[in-house]
């Protein structure tokens, strides 16, 4: 692994000033993405700022009912937190469906938000990849694009899925990302944080150079809601989603009064399906309603040579999840 300068930060401010606005610096939390990609020479930071000693490991319930999660809360700690497991079951389930025990023990909340794509053409270091070498093209579009390639939100420059399960649950719940940077603190709506590839697939998120995520604050849970994360994949554990759904619903009798739907494994970013939600609200909880909403969620989908199956699979992920939740 290539060498780099190393600084351990004792405060958020110190972390930001050690990093500076230089793009060749990287913040190190759990390291499960960063060190992996440095080892295979895809990321080449000249400066690593270790933020593991910062006081960002708490989960707090705020007075307005929201829940504030420190950037360094591990995926294990977040999934096992009693408040998260009871008020945001979809998030706990999503976290526990991702990676492995020992990776979840290292991986952090902010690191999960910042994880890079799993497209093999991005990781191989030689194929054309607009994320790695802007302007070089996208080998996935004409290549092997079955498992970690999207049908929603793609462009002619990149079709890689965002790999996170946690972020799909957060997209459904609604959240705010707090960042600290050279110009101070600001907040970013979770749904605006991950960028569509468009013409600039090398730009993956809304952070300005040098900005550090300090917290993710979840919206207050919907009253009397129930939620579930359903992940469909090639094997039962330790595999990225082919299609997944995070669904939150509230019911009055057999009528759906509110619904949140987000999708994983099918989109270039954690995919909130607003139009599908609108098709559920006020409707009877029947399979016909679910099928209609699922169809709407994928009406703008673009299949590629090997991943057209993700459209019916993703629709099934919505229908089955809603069926389970409203049974």
């Amino acid at each position, binding site marked *: 692994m290539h060498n780099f300068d190393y600084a351990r930060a004792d405060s958020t401010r110190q972390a930001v000033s050690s990093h500076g606005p230089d793009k060749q610096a990287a913040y190190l939390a759990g390291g499960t993405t960063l060190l*992996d990609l440095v080892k295979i020479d895809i990321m080449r930071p000249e400066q690593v700022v*270790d933020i593991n000693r910062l006081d960002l490991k708490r989960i707090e319930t705020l007075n307005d009912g929201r829940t504030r999660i420190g950037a360094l809360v591990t995926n294990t700690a977040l999934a*096992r937190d009693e408040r998260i497991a009871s008020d945001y079951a979809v998030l706990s389930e999503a976290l526990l469906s991702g990676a*492995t025990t*020992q990776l979840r023990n290292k991986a952090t909340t902010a690191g999960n938000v910042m994880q890079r794509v799993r497209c093999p053409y991005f990781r191989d270091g030689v194929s054309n990849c607009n994320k790695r070498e802007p302007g070089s093209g996208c080998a996935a579009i004409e290549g092997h694009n079955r498992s970690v390639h999207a049908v929603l939100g793609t462009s002619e420059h990149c079709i890689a899925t965002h790999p996170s399960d946690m972020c799909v649950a957060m997209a459904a719940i609604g959240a705010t990302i707090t960042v600290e940077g050279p110009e101070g603190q600001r907040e970013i709506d979770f749904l605006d944080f991950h960028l569509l590839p468009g013409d600039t697939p090398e730009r993956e998120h809304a952070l300005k150079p040098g900005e550090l995520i300090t917290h993710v604050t979840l919206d207050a849970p919907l009253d009397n809601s129930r939620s579930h994360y359903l992940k469909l994949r090639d094997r039962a554990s330790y595999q990225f989603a082919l299609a997944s759904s995070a669904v939150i619903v509230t019911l009055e009798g057999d009528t759906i009064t509110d619904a949140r739907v987000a999708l994983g494994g099918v989109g270039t970013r954690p995919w909130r399906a607003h139009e599908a939600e609108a098709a559920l609200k006020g409707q009877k909880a029947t399979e016909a309603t679910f099928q209609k909403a699922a169809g709407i969620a994928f009406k703008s989908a673009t299949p590629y040579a090997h991943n057209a199956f993700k459209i019916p699979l993703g629709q099934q992920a919505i229908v089955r999840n809603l069926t389970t939740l409203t049974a």
Partner: protein
Amino acid sequence: MSDHHKGDGSGVETFDARSPSRRRFLKSMGASGLAAATAPAWAQIAQAGQSQAEPVEPRDDGAPAEGEQQIRLTVNGVEHTLNVTPNAVLLDVLRDRLELTGTKKGCDQGQCGACTLLVNDTAINSCLSLAVSHDGDEITTIEGLSNGDDLHPVQAAFWEHDAYQCGYCTSGQIMSAVAILNDDNIGSDDASVREAMSGNICRCGAYKNILAAVQDARGRMKGAS
């Protein structure tokens, strides 16, 4: 971790002081040369068993050179002061600097689990960890589980259930098993154990015996605590 050493020894009769660890055996082979190599296998084992494992002495690198960071690691209860470059990986420091080669390097990318060890009692992939990030941490490797020749209950169960073939993934499997058996959040049913152990890949496919060993060890650890 002291609870792990309270095993009553039941079921470990086949493993006595004359049965060497593979590492001790290989070290002895190197030292005893040709005479040992020409002796029958059982005699080599008996001879090897007479030498004790060398204890890991505390290491102190002194003042760090330019470009190095000084860190303190407590590994299996022994505190070391080491100088490492920022890109030194915890797994490599343990294997190459402290000669604790029980922790294995498999994929070196966080995908196989062979490098699993405990940091402050939590199982992590040591291949995706910078040594410098673990300054001040307490690390337990496979070498730190047994109490002399008394195997940890999980080691004893792996031995009895033949929970390996080539053995390369075994130390990672055992370290994961130790962590999940001490974690009340992880269910005790077979499905929960399989899910919790899915980060440890066994290319020989010894999963059935691994599962049996973990479940057997659960009973032994409960009986011992």
